[in-house]
């Protein structure tokens, strides 16, 4: 497949998913925050809580609409731009997408209408239930799409059927309970909760700075900071589990995240560092221009054992017999055997030669785990862009720690002191809103850029997965999406800013 086509298709997928994920996290978290608020309203009967609920609900709706707009393309883009992928793994990958539609999207859309227009039409109890169901529905949809994503990162529960030329599901439970999928789900929804908390705390801070609706802003802040503090601890734990799963299933990604070229035991993690741009797999230069390392942590994070050997990129590409690590070259040879056996199987079947078909099938089964390597040109192709993965990972971690500190500080001050006296904290909280989005997108860059060149880990590189289409078509749609989504984003931010300025009393 031509390189430019693959690049434009990747760029379009990256663009549309980055845009979509600007809106998803807020929906995931703010749904619950609004549900907490409405619960307090229903329990206390205090009208001010209804006002609080309605204010945040309005912001929720503005964000939700553009989330839906950017989301529909994601459901179809696997087909439009990754058609070969869609056939090759559609038997497994399609199921979670369909389940997402049946179980989650309808729940969201049905009760969304009740939540916004039902205030005077349905009972208080049914309204509250609807608000909770919208939150649960959006989180359920995250579950299914992340099961699908987790499966691409670590395909399980399937067998390759050469007759249909695709992977077929053999165990549904293996697919949905895959530890990679579960940890990915928990870490991602956690990031959504943190972003929503940052959003609530940041905007409440702004209102307090402007001396507007102080009581309601403080109440919102307490809920946001509490939820944020708990969930930022949660993402640290789920992040640890995610890293452990990456170590077990995608060691090349882990090495790229750390810029680790030479494998080692008792490996430390780089707390802050800068990569040496001249470093390559071939030379022996130092990988970092400078680095501040915390000893043992990488071994512990990856394998839960401070003495564990963490393979570096060189081990993974060139192989390391001492550590029993197969070279990529060997995997490519096995992959080529698998691809060849698959063709021979097809030819033998065509010629009705069962004996030959069986022989080919045996070779294929033996080497199927390396099938995707058969399409790679050279061993180095297996290494993702190291700098982008490295910096994204470190940025995400540093920001994650900052958010935890921020929530703790805010929570302490708002409870024990007069928060309006702490202008620096309030401003920091406000400016941390965009940081939350940056951290979440950085996390996705680690997950997705870090697994290149694979569309499906070890089985299908992106070059094979892409739709057979001339790159001009994809280039045009890329720009159409870029222009349209950017325009809609501007509209969304302007509307949102206006509603925030109106404050709680603004009538929502």
């Amino acid at each position, binding site marked *: 497949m031509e390189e430019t086509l693959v690049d434009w298709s990747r760029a379009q997928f990256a663009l549309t998913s980055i845009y979509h994920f600007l809106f998803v996290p807020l929906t995931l978290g703010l749904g619950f925050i609004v549900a907490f608020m409405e619960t307090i309203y229903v329990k206390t009967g205090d009208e001010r809580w209804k006002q609080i609920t309605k204010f945040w609900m309005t912001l929720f709706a503005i964000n939700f609409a553009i989330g839906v707009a950017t989301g529909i393309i994601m459901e179809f883009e696997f087909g439009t731009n990754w058609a070969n992928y869609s056939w090759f793994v559609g038997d497994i990958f*399609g199921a979670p997408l369909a389940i997402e539609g049946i179980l989650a999207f309808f729940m969201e859309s049905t009760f969304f*209408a009740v939540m916004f*227009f039902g205030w005077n039409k349905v009972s208080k109890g049914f309204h509250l239930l609807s608000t909770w169901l919208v939150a649960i529905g959006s989180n359920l949809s995250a579950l299914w799409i992340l099961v699908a994503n987790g499966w691409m990162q670590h395909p399980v529960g399937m067998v390759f059927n050469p007759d249909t030329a695709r992977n077929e599901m053999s165990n549904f439970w293996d697919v949905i309970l895959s530890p990679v999928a579960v940890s990915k789900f928990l870490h991602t929804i956690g990031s959504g909760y943190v972003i929503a908390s940052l959003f609530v705390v940041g905007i409440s801070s702004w209102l307090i700075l402007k001396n507007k609706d102080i009581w309601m802003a403080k109440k919102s802040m307490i809920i946001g900071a509490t939820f944020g503090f708990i969930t930022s601890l949660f993402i640290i734990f789920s992040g640890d589990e995610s890293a452990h799963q990456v170590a077990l299933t995608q060691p090349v990604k882990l090495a790229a995240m750390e810029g680790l070229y030479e494998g080692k035991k008792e490996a430390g993690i780089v707390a802050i560092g800068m990569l040496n741009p001249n470093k390559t797999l071939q030379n022996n230069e130092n990988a970092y221009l400078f680095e501040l390392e915390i000893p043992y942590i990488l071994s512990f994070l990856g394998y839960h054992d401070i003495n564990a050997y963490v393979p570096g990129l060189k081990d993974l590409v060139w192989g390391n017999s001492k550590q029993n690590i197969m070279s990529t070259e060997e995997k490519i040879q096995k992959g080529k055997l698998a691809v060849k056996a698959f063709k021979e199987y097809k030819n033998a079947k065509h010629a009705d030669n069962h004996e030959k078909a069986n022989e080919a099938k045996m070779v294929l089964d033996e080497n199927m785990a390396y099938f995707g390597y058969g399409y790679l040109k050279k061993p180095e192709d297996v290494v993702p862009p190291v700098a982008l993965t490295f910096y994204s990972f470190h940025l995400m971690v540093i920001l994650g720690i900052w958010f935890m500190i921020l929530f703790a500080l805010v929570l302490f001050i708002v409870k024990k002191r007069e928060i309006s006296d702490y202008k620096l904290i309030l401003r920091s909280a406000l400016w941390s809103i965009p940081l939350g989005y940056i951290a979440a997108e950085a996390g996705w860059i680690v997950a997705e850029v870090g697994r290149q060149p694979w569309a499906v880990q070890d089985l299908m590189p992106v070059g094979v997965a892409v739709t057979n289409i001339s790159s001009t078509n994809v280039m045009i749609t890329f720009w159409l999406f870029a222009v349209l989504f950017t325009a809609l984003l501007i509209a*969304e931010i302007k509307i949102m800013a206006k509603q925030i300025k109106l404050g709680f009393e603004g009538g929502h």
Partner: protein
Amino acid sequence: MFENLSLLQLQQYWWMIISLLGGLFVFMLFVQGGQTLLNALSANETEKTMMVNSLGRKWELGFTTLVLFGGALFAAFPLFYSTSFGGAYWVWMAILFCFIIQAVSYEYRIKPNNFFGQKTYEIFLYINGNIGVFLLGVAISTFFSGSEFFIDERNFSYWQNSLRGLEALLNPLNYLLGFALVFLSKILGALYFINNINYQDIQHRAINSIKFNMIAFLIFFLGFLVWVLTKDGFAINETGSIYIQPFKYLFNFLTMPIVLAMFLAGVAMVITAVFMTIRFNKSSCIKTGGMGAVLAVTALLLNVGLNNTAYYPSTFDLQSSLTIMNSSGSHYTLKVMGYVSLMVPFVLGYIVYAWYQMDKTKITKEEIEAPDAHNY
């Protein structure tokens, strides 16, 4: 229970679900149809806002049905998903763009500081209602007229026309279903307004709009029917080869009398709904008309997929045509998804319940003008 079904039975079961989803989706196109009537049926901003809010409480259900349609096709008939979406790239992209702009329009239309201005969002709704629906009709029409693609031994597909799906617009026969769907959605939209908005002027204008739209609908729909029922179809023989069979779709109706009965009943219900509305000023005919649309469309899709018919034919290479047999998921996946499909009645149940709760009281001018109203 699903493990006892054969692969073919599961494929048929899933085609029935897809057909039903298609039917429900076309019913939900009343939202799109309503969007095209916003200016025609309103005399002032308040009236328009009443209509936008009436549709605004339902648009997401239709949108979600479209999304589910994509997901269900991916899970149940992945070869269609890869071949059609990847192949007819521009048609699907155009349809998706029409729906992307719909999704923000309700929420952003009258919000202060909305960047594009109210008019733009209303134009978005208009585009979604006309072009989006028309292109959907054209895309579905290719199930009967065929497309140009080739599928290799790996089941990778190769579209043979560089217009990537837009070539369907070069065949005027595909316009018949496109326009039929546009006018049907307008009729359903008007029936919905009549039922959902308690305001005489709008109801009156809606009835008038139905008169013209019904005639236009009947012309295109009958044209479509004549074309489909007299045309050659794409049939499958015992060995799985595709061949051309004269009057295939007419023959399908006659061999599947239940499907024919569904179809006729559906069409009759749409006509009855329109008649009762125009003649007797009935206000609840969206139910009859909507059910009729569901039945007729479901039957049409059953016709093109069952009874050994290639539902997505290739005119470039007949043997590349997609059938429910050669394009489906595996037995295991269809079985798992079969269990998931048992949730559908439950989902429909809560949708109907919430819908009933919300629409018990009709939309009135007072509600829209209330100071604490959350309006679109």
